[in-house]
């Protein structure tokens, strides 16, 4: 006679009074497929696909125009224009500056993020609010502030200084968000396993934030490729300044077209490089954040506070001081341009507001498709839209000019073309913001809405829309703020006889009428600061991952 007993429940067997045994009695795989996550990709409504396709196609148009233009120039002439000493100089200037500024911004942004998020820095809420603000100051205003006070500032190191001061918040924001949302338990485990504070920072904190850091660096690099005004003021020759000169001064469109090709190629290479480095590392579940134990700064407190204050003073204080200095002296010397200020502010707000509204509305179908109906088609549309990031505003503006002059002369130098340029340029911003807010509405809410007898349009109106509204507002402000301080495309596309804050500022600055220019800079900053504050609060609540969906 034989007998065996049941698989013993063992130490982990019976748990409760009424004996719920271990659950593997049925030989179930322990791999939990994640309940509720096994969702089918539902086919997207046709209207959503059509809308997304139209938006994606529209975003591609400037690139197409640019290529058509280049094709019309012809390869022989293009190669003559490209393979010359000037191109090499521009390439060296651009790449070396990008390398210096990106490295410096990465260092400053990460250090500042660590100080505000992971140490017991005093007044850290104030400091973290201040440290973000330079992002609201256009780089050409920072450059103007510095050169108007120190006219000898120019060249690589001058440009590197000014642009680092203007761009480090682009690294600070995502890295700080990543530090904030990371699970401190990982760091605690690392410490308990015998790794010191510094090694833990390198091997755990920074490693977890590397995607955010990479994304920030990508943004810095792309902004640098697109920057024009600051370089012009600092007399630093890059692709943009050269393209602008060829177009505006020499009316040499073939040369501008050839150089644009190189610039876009550089941007695409950076995007591709980032995509390769970040490949397969996205979309990990975000651990639930809890209260962080902050490192004690101890005797380092004073130096850290001082260096952060100095940073803010250099980035924000210098342009502000320059503005007040010139405004004060202008009251005695030149007539304030009060009437033109009002008109410029109105047009700036009008164009920026229209562009912000259009970009936000256009982003909605693409974002919903990408989040709710993830699939090959949605990915293609989304990537297409984000490809625009590689196109500097200057290139987009010139492509639109080419198109208008060649085919639809009526819209050349109309507000329509300028707003269209803004929409395309800042569409990636809108898409990222809208996408993040759509992703924060669980699909289960929409399902519950339908099971309660509401048809999809009603669910959209009563559930989805109210919940994504903050994200739509954020997107609107993000685009609005960026458009208000846009200079390059505006200079090319602004309707005849109209001045915006940026173009009027630029005109006065070129005449060295700093006193007359200062009020326009002041107004730009005033218009930009409110959205930046709202934006900062929104970024605060956003997990780092969604900032990097690009």
């Amino acid at each position, binding site marked *: *006679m*034989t*007998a*065996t*007993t*049941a*698989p*013993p*429940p063992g130490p982990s*067997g*019976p748990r*409760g*009074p*009424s*004996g*719920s*045994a271990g*659950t*593997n*009695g*049925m*030989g*179930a*795989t*322990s*791999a*939990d*497929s994640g*309940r*509720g996550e*096994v*969702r*089918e990709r539902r086919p997207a409504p046709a209207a959503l696909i059509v809308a997304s396709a139209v938006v994606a196609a529209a975003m591609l148009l400037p690139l197409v125009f640019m290529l058509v233009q280049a094709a019309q120039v012809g390869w022989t002439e293009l190669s003559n224009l490209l393979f010359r000493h000037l191109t090499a100089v521009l390439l060296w200037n651009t790449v070396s500056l990008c390398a210096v500024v990106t490295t410096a911004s990465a260092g400053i942004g990460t250090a500042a993020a660590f100080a505000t998020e992971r140490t017991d820095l005093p007044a850290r809420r104030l400091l973290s609010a201040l440290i973000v603000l330079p992002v609201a100051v256009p780089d050409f205003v920072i450059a103007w502030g510095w050169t108007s006070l120190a006219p000898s500032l120019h060249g690589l190191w001058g440009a590197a200084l000014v642009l680092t001061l203007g761009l480090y918040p682009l690294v600070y924001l995502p890295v700080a968000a990543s530090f904030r949302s990371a699970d401190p338990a990982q760091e605690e485990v690392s410490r308990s396993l015998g790794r010191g504070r510094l090694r833990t920072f390198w091997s755990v904190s920074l490693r977890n934030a590397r995607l955010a850091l990479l994304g920030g660096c990508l943004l810095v690099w792309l902004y640098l490729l697109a920057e024009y005004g600051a370089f012009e003021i600092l007399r630093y020759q890059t692709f943009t300044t050269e393209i602008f000169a060829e177009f505006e001064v020499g009316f040499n469109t073939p040369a501008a077209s050839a150089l644009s090709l190189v610039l876009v190629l550089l941007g695409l290479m950076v995007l591709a490089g980032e995509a390769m480095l970040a490949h397969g590392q996205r979309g990990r579940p975000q651990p639930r954040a809890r209260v962080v134990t902050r490192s004690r700064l101890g005797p380092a407190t004073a130096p850290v506070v001082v260096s952060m204050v100095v940073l803010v003073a250099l980035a924000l204080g210098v342009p502000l001081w320059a503005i007040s200095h010139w405004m004060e002296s202008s009251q005695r010397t030149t007539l304030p341009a009060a009437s033109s200020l009002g008109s410029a502010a109105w047009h700036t707000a009008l164009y920026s507001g229209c562009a912000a509204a259009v970009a936000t509305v256009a982003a909605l179908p693409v974002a919903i498709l990408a989040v709710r109906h993830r699939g090959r088609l949605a990915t293609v549309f989304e990537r297409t839209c984000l490809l625009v990031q590689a196109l500097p505003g200057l290139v987009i503006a010139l492509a639109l000019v080419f198109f208008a002059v060649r085919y639809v002369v009526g819209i050349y130098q109309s507000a329509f073309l300028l707003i269209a340029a803004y929409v395309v340029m800042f569409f990636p911003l809108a898409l990222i913001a809208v996408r993040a807010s759509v992703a924060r509405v*669980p699909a*289960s*809410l929409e*399902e*519950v*809405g*339908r*099971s*309660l*007898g*509401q*048809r*999809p349009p009603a669910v959209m109106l*009563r*559930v989805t829309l*109210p*919940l994504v509204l903050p994200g739509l507002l954020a997107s609107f402000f993000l685009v609005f703020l960026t458009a208000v301080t846009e200079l390059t495309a505006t200079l090319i596309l602004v309707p005849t006889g109209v001045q915006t804050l940026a173009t009027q500022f630029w005109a006065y600055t070129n005449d060295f009428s700093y006193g007359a220019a200062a009020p326009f800079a002041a107004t730009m900053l005033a218009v930009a600061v409110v959205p930046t504050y709202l934006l900062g609060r929104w970024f605060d609540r956003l997990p780092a991952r969604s900032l990097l969906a690009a």
Partner: protein
Amino acid sequence: MTRVVVSGLRKSFGARVVLDGLDLEVPEGSLTAVLGPSGSGKTTLLRILAGFERPEAGSVTLGENVVEDGRTHLPPEARRVGYVPQDGALFPHLSASGNVGFGLSRRERRSGRVEELLGLVGLSGEGRRFPHQLSGGMQQRVALARALAGQPSLVLLDEPFSSLDAALRAGVRADVARVLSETGTTSVLVTHDQDEALSLADRVAVLRGGRVVQCASPEQLYTDPLDPALASFVGDANLLEGTVRAGTAVTPLGTLAIADDGRPLAEAQKVMVLVRPEQLELRTSNASNGGGGIDGLVVECRYFGHDMLVTVEMAAEVKGRRPLLYARLTGRSPLGSGSPVALSVAGPVKAWPAGSG
């Protein structure tokens, strides 16, 4: 009140078959629990019932209406099926009243129906609070009231208690069961918790490999499970090999009476026998009174207060090793390990022909 009939349901995600020809019948007005380990397809079943997903084959009938088959797919909003997800999924931008009234017309919302429903789930006067101001248990009650608002023909509950604290769980469970039986709503509860299924439901359907392996009353499932694997899934189990002799099973624990399950066993047939831990009786023995029972030694005693689970090693070797047995005792002081005990089995036992799982 509606009877639900599901037949031949098939669904796969990519290469993974989740439902493999599932049949299920939910009697009118009953609470049926669908019990299965993680990944057994129970949530998928629920989502198909709700209309959120379409099966590749099979049909779903609610009352008289075929809502799902090869040709028909009634959208969720047309099914009148209430849905209570795991986390409640309350609309964060609406108050408790706003949530409950979401599916109601304006006239119905004004008729006091919302307040009535909140009262039903024990939340009178809490209607103005927003989801983030409510505890987890309150959120689940609101979610239930919301699901019941439109007098649905069927209510689906997707592990609605698993995100609650143990202390809260019992109360919410009891309230939900009370509300469902008071309203007489046909409901399906998905869970991986055996206690929950056995204590709440009128009927329990156990899912395995994308099919229902057994659908029975809780008592029948516990005392007369289909096979040994199912027996250990729905509760602790001692499984012993034995041989049928004259209507009894001869096992290392002695000769045991076999419960009659309507499937007679042949003489001398090898069987697998189920002895639930509460059927195993322990007497502290010592050398002087060796009268009756099988000798064993206490290996471990886990004391829960209201009862305890004792692991006993049999003194006699079976196939070269000493089997471990589990006994649940109530109203006794904990036993020290190494204590000698005598084992006996109370009541008839379930026996399956050997090799049946």
